[in-house]
């Protein structure tokens, strides 16, 4: 989710609530003899509020399962964006509130509260990382990947690219009678003779070798296995040197291949960015559910032994 001026209301509310939480915490700590405790009235209040925030944040996952839900009973279900805002800002707020509940302690090493607090920290940090990623990567993709396509279609697009490159190379390296000879300048008065166009034949062989050695591997396998094409800079150098050794008739084919190689590289980059964009969720989501379960156990125990 992009943090922009549309989130101003949420940001202000979060700051106000944060300040209020901390502001209330100071007199609360000052009024206690043995220091803050989660079992005290104020501590419990912090715990309930923090848990509620955590619960709201976790419910986003459930809300996303029912994408077209319009009402929950008589209450409007709200747009998914509203739930996302709540998830982000209340999730952020829940951490200091729970810290207030815990008296800024993680508990005894190995205990349930210790596990919960560390889990919460990991979830909290992973969430912030995710938020940062979601604010950076879409913009980067927009700037760097003008040929971006649907992730699930990459296999199909790659197959098309392979076919196109093969067709270009096949066509360019096909022997054509009219091109296989060149005019040779001879002294005046003598007949003009032709000889095999050695440069063209050599260029064709070079292009074929480039295709077999590098291009195929670059298109079929991991592009990073062909360093000379893996980045825009190295690819520009590679194509520059190839162009220098090619006759003019093959240059359009080289241009087309370079364009297709750039497209392949963009797919590779898109895959990397796509993974960055979504892989953090593999950490954040399951740990969030685990956190809720552990927090529920903790709450149950706390209420039972109150």
């Amino acid at each position, binding site marked *: *989710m992009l943090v922009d001026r549309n989130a101003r209301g949420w940001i202000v509310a979060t700051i106000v609530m944060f300040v209020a939480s901390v502001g209330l915490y100071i007199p609360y700590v000052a009024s206690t003899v043995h220091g803050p405790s989660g079992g005290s009235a104020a501590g419990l209040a912090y715990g309930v509020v923090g848990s509620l925030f955590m619960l709201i944040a976790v419910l986003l996952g459930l809300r996303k399962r029912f*994408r*077209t839900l319009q009402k929950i009973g008589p209450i409007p279900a709200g747009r*998914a964006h509203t739930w996302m805002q709540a998830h982000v800002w209340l999730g952020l707020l829940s951490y200091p509130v729970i810290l207030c509940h815990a008296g800024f302690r993680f508990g005894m090493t190995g205990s349930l509260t210790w596990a919960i607090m560390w889990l919460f920290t990991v979830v909290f940090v992973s969430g912030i990382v995710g938020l940062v990623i979601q604010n950076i990567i*879409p913009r980067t993709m927009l700037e760097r990947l*003008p040929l971006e396509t*649907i*992730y699930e279609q990459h296999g199909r697009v790659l197959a098309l690219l392979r076919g196109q490159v093969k067709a270009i190379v096949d066509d360019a390296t096909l022997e054509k009678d009219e091109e296989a000879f060149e005019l040779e300048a001879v002294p005046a008065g003598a007949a003009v003779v032709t000889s095999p166009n050695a440069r063209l034949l050599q260029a064709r062989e070079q292009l074929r070798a480039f295709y077999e050695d590098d291009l195929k591997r670059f298109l079929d396998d991991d592009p990073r296995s062909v360093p000379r094409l893996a980045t825009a800079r190295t690819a520009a150098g590679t194509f520059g040197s190839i162009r220098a050794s090619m006759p003019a008739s093959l240059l359009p084919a080289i241009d087309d291949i370079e364009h297709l190689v750039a497209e392949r590289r963009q797919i590779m980059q898109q895959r990397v960015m796509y993974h960055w*964009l979504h892989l953090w969720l593999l950490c954040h989501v399951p740990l969030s559910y685990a956190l809720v379960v552990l927090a529920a156990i903790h709450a149950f125990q706390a209420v039972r032994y109150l």
Partner: protein
Amino acid sequence: MSDTKLVNFELDGIPIAAPDTLTIYDAARLAHEYAVNEEDRRRLKEDPIDIPILCHKEDSRDELKSVGVCRVCCVMEGSPRLPYQVPKRYIASCCRKVEPDMKILTRSPDVDESRRTLVELLLAEHPVPCKRHEQFHDCELELLGERFGLLETTEDPTKKAGQDGKYKTEWVKPQVYTDRVFSKGTDFTNPSIHIDHSACVLCDRCVRACSDVAGEMVIGRMGKGKNTAITFDLDKPMGQSNCVSCGWCMISCPTGAITYAGSGIQAALPGAKLAAEDMKRHRLFKEISIEFLRRAEGGVVVRHFRKGEIICRQGDFGSTAFYIDSGKVDIFLETEFGHVRTRQKGGFFNRVASLLISREEKPRKEENTRAYIPIDAPIDLAYEKPFAQIGEGELFGEAACINLQPRSATVRAAEDTIVLEMLRNVVDILRRQKPFRMEMDRKYRERALATHLRTSDIFRDIPDEAVDFLRPQVSLLSFRPGETIVRQDQRADDPDNGGLYLVRMGHVKVTETYADGNSITLSYLSRGNVFGEIGLLSSEAVRTANCAALDHVEVVRISKPVFDELVVQYPALKERLGTLAAKRLADNRDHAAMQKRVSLQQYVDAGLYQAQSLLILDLEKCTRCDECVKACAQAHNGITRLLREGTKYDKYLVTTSCRSCRDPLCMVGCPVGSIRRKNDLEIIIDDHCVGCGRCAEQCPYGNISMHPIKRDLSKEELDKGAGNGFKATVCDLCNSDQCLDEIDDPACVYACPHDAAHRVDGQTFFDQTLFGNGKK
């Protein structure tokens, strides 16, 4: 017709009351309908007036204008105040209109003698027999010579029609003048059409056909006196001229001057090919020139179908029409009514399958309420029971053939049936034959008008009495592609083209032109839609838009006086039309306002100007989570109506999802009219979609998908070629009851957690956001 004035006059002493738009020739031909007395009508039906014609050719569209050059159709006009026997003058009946108090004599010894002399003079310049008459006994001039007792023809039974010498024609009496001894020449430079100038009677039919019907303007006249002749491109050999060999000159020629020299159409139609002479003997083709039939050999085949055999199947792209020669056929919609959804099947990975949900199982609120489904036959199908039967003498598949639409229904032989299957050129010629058109129109008025009127929302519950009232009063009109039906600023009460129109076949494009000369498309109308109501109901009685034929269009016109009379009896009609007119006017105003607001050219190429509801994704916010696609699928029974792929503009991605275009090309060509607009915005595909895929092909942006559906077919059905088929799916902006009925946003926007998806008006959004012409 009520919008024309009836004039009273006498024809051979019989009082006639006929419209003033008719010529004397037409009034005489239809005298059995227009005679004032019942007894006269009966007598004229038994013994019709038969005025001979030569340079005049009947054409249902009146494109071959009468010019009256041969005068063979002459009749005698008597003095109004004197007895019949006192002649005033001879007039050409083919081009003279009827007038009040005329006294016309079509049958008398003097008139016959005049015609006989004219024919004899024309024959004096004509080879007897000409090539056409010698082979087919079909030269109109020589047939007239036989009619007036000038010529006599004998047949050689040992030869076949088409061979030289099959018919031998001679003068009955030796003529008083000598035979023509010189030839005016021949032109065999065109491989398929031969010219014999000697047989030409300079009737100008070929000149008019070339210019007015074919629009080629290649043929003209040159020379003076006896050297006058038809020429191609100012006296070039035909083969070297700009002639496109369309054959209209040959079809129009009454004699053997322009004949066919090729070998017929090599069409691969299944069935027994019908020879030209057999076609000529058939009641359907008897009025058509033998030269055309020779050229069309192979374009008509006889097909025998046993009871239960399929003649044509819905959704197929056919280029032929069918005429039922004998037997009966059933017409029905093969596709089940229903919409598609995806159901989860069992199994670990929850496999999904698309299934068809019937209307009974889960009805859709937005499903059509129409009573009839328009199809390509002289009858419409009842929505609740889409089945009909037609029999001998009926033509079906006309729109598929003429407008290259997919077949709108499946046709099956109800009993052993013989049909004539025809190619487009044959159907086109048939449609031009006045007797054929009149017969088809008569059948339409009798059988189809009622259901056709009821296919329209306006006339959906029109009582039988009102249909009976309209039946003889409405005009049935045809228009060629591009032809204007009504023009903006024209009078809506004009006697020639005023009134209310109901589309019978084809598609009508409605455009509005503004003061600055720009014009935009307001709508496309197809069978069952009405237009012309705004002008008709407004006090100014002026048309507010142009309506032009997009393809071959046929319409029913209800003239202003008839309409006024109708709404007096049925005021509900006026009320409905008023509502429709108000809605259309409001839409037009919106269009005009939009036109003024934005610079169109910037968006025209990408079609964004057309978009009323674009789904755009802000790519800076979008995390490519596909929640929009998943929500769309969830809202539409598991079938998404959008793809997160498309054109990029700045940071916005215009997704592949219906744009609700202002100019919805997808609606053009639906054979059963199942694609339509709802609430002037979203496009809806009704459950009776036959899955032909025309709409998907027509959409320039690829926003309509053909979704495969699974049906439980029996082995017998599979053997007969029935397939699982397809249904078209399109974004309906979630305005159906399956979607979000309480939320303004469609599911894709509602479910986007990152506020990246938006539905916007293309013009406004891009003008404001990308070009900074205002605040977003």
